């Protein structure tokens, strides 16, 4: 069977033009996707856990969905400070149910944002978000800046669909009218196609951003001959390119958010964009990794007012990154039960946190065996949104997209499972 206009559930680009051919429960062909997307989709039905598993005195055994759901509801109800973590690779509907459940439990709900673009959001909360949709960038931008990211490897189709190489409505000669600037600590593949590659010494982003701001302000006299390894001549060139552009778009990745300076880097980038808007039009967009991590921020925000790390223990939504973020809760050994949904802290969190995670009752909702599996007491496999379950996902520019299903493997969706756990919770704790 051939499925057209399918959405790729891999990265935040959410490419919506895929053609997927299936034979029974096998994917036999994927057109238009990049390597990352097609690899994920070609293996759509593979490596799935058959059914829920639970640990009995150290040994895994198969369990029924009812038993696993009962167990999950039980540990969450028994806990004083339950943590509901993950949410980046699941459907918006499940995220919404998760928030309602966290509220009723008086628990903490946090998404993987806290370990990737959390700092971007902090900066945005301080100074605002001069953003726009990718469509605006595609049709108008004549200058693209990638800062601290490598779209070639992380979002391969970003440049061909939304930025540099895509034809723009207001650009006559397509990519020949666009300039591409790359700022990074390493010379990546993307550098080979950039008009200007700015190599910053690790940790120097803040200084380089400040220098650019000074130049754009007309105070190049305060800029020393080199800033974090970047020559003043190059900074002047980059600033001139930015000012001369009719419409500039800055994209940044974890190279900016997670390097020394963290959210201050992003704040400085936003303020540079603000400065540039006195001369021309300029926007800024974080490059979001997981296909629906942005959705977790959107859903959490429109339900609680806060984008991640929301703590309901005070009966109201409370948000204090650094205190209510998952890593910190685990490091302080504060949470006493955890529900991990569609994410893999086992692969990304510090050892100290994982030791605590392994010592408390934990349920993982994930279709596959992951690095987190060995740390949990129970795992419930579900359908993968965008493969065997439809749902809502938010693209990196905040546009919600309905992702479709093309397989039927008989697994319940994340929303169904979390909904059932929520039902059980509601039986005990009344809203």
């Amino acid at each position, binding site marked *: 069977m051939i499925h057209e206009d399918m959405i790729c559930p891999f990265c935040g680009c959410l*490419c919506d*033009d895929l053609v997927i051919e299936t034979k029974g429960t096998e994917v036999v*062909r*994927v*057109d*238009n*996707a*990049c*390597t*990352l997307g*097609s*690899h994920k989709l*070609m293996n759509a039905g593979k490596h799935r856990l058959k059914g829920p598993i639970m640990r009995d005195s150290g040994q895994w055994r198969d369990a029924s969905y009812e038993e696993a759901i009962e167990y999950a509801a039980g540990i969450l109800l028994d806990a004083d400070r339950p943590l509901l973590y993950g949410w980046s690779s699941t459907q918006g509907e499940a995220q919404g149910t998760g928030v309602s459940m966290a509220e009723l439990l008086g628990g903490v709900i946090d998404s993987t944002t806290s370990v990737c673009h959390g700092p971007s959001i902090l900066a945005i909360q301080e100074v605002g978000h001069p953003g726009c949709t990718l469509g605006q960038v*595609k049709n108008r931008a004549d200058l693209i800046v990638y800062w601290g990211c490598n779209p*070639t*490897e992380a979002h*391969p*189709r970003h*440049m*061909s*669909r939304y930025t*540099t*190489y*895509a*034809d723009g*409505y207001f650009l006559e000669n*397509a*990519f020949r009218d666009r300039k591409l600037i790359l700022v990074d600590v390493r010379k990546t*593949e*993307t550098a*080979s*196609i950039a008009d200007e590659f700015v190599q910053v010494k690790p940790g120097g982003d803040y200084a380089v951003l400040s220098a650019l701001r000074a130049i754009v302000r007309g105070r190049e006299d305060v800029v020393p001959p080199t800033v974090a390894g970047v020559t003043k001549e190059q900074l002047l060139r980059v600033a001139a390119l930015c000012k001369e552009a009719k419409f500039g778009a800055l994209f940044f990745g974890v190279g900016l958010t997670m390097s020394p300076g963290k959210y201050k880097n992003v704040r400085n980038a936003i303020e540079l964009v603000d400065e540039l808007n006195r001369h021309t039009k300029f926007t800024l967009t974080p490059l979001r990794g997981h296909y629906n991590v942005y959705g977790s921020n959107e859903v959490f925000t429109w339900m609680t007012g806060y984008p991640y790390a929301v703590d309901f223990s005070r009966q109201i939504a409370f948000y204090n990154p650094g205190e209510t973020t998952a890593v910190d809760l685990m490091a302080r050994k504060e949470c006493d039960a955890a529900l991990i949904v569609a994410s893999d802290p086992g692969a990304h969190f510090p050892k100290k946190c994982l030791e605590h995670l392994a010592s408390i009752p934990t349920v993982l909702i994930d279709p596959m065996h992951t690095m987190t599996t060995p740390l949990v007491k129970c795992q419930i496999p579900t359908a993968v949104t965008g493969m065997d379950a439809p749902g809502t996902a938010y693209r990196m520019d905040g546009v919600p997209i309905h992702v479709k299903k093309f397989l039927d493997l008989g697994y319940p969706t994340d929303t169904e499972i979390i909904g059932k756990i929520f039902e059980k919770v509601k039986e005990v704790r009344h809203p």
Partner: protein
Amino acid sequence: MGFSIIWYLREFIRGEWLKNFFFAKTAPLVDPPYFRGYPALTGKECTHCLSCMMICPTPGAIEVLREGETWTPHIYPGHCIRCGLCVEACPEDVLDVGRVLETQHRDQTEISVRYQVTVKPEACVRCGNCVVACPVNKEADPQLGATGTSANDEVIMKIRNGNLWVIHDEKCTGCKTCEEVCPTDAIAIARVAEGTQEGKA
């Protein structure tokens, strides 16, 4: 005093020598018919296909320049090695040198050029940059550039079945835009020039 200046002048300024020097009678210098000089214009109209520039093995020896409404190839003698390949490559007989054109017409030979598009699948990330940037693809599939989705099979290459497939390299004009925009150096354009004789391969 045998080596005085007077002696010197008398010894060397001899009337016969001077006469021979200034009024020597030698056969005029003419190129033998088989001699290959610098390509010259035949007066036929240049269509700006640039085949001559592309076949030229010497950097900077030939350049096709616009003169008002027309195009004209210019040869730069300091660079030209007089190989005559541009004469053979030109489909319009705009250039000639020696007996190249004559021989070519007699033997009905020509140089045909095509391009081979090669993709290194292990390096290619299927980003689609080359697919949307290729000017031939843009013409063949008008929506491709704007959407990044190739909707027909008239394009030179497209992302299909998890790979970048080259399906129509006969349409490639050798502009190398794809090479320029590929971040991973995964695509390469090779020019294949072939001498062919009518009726024979």
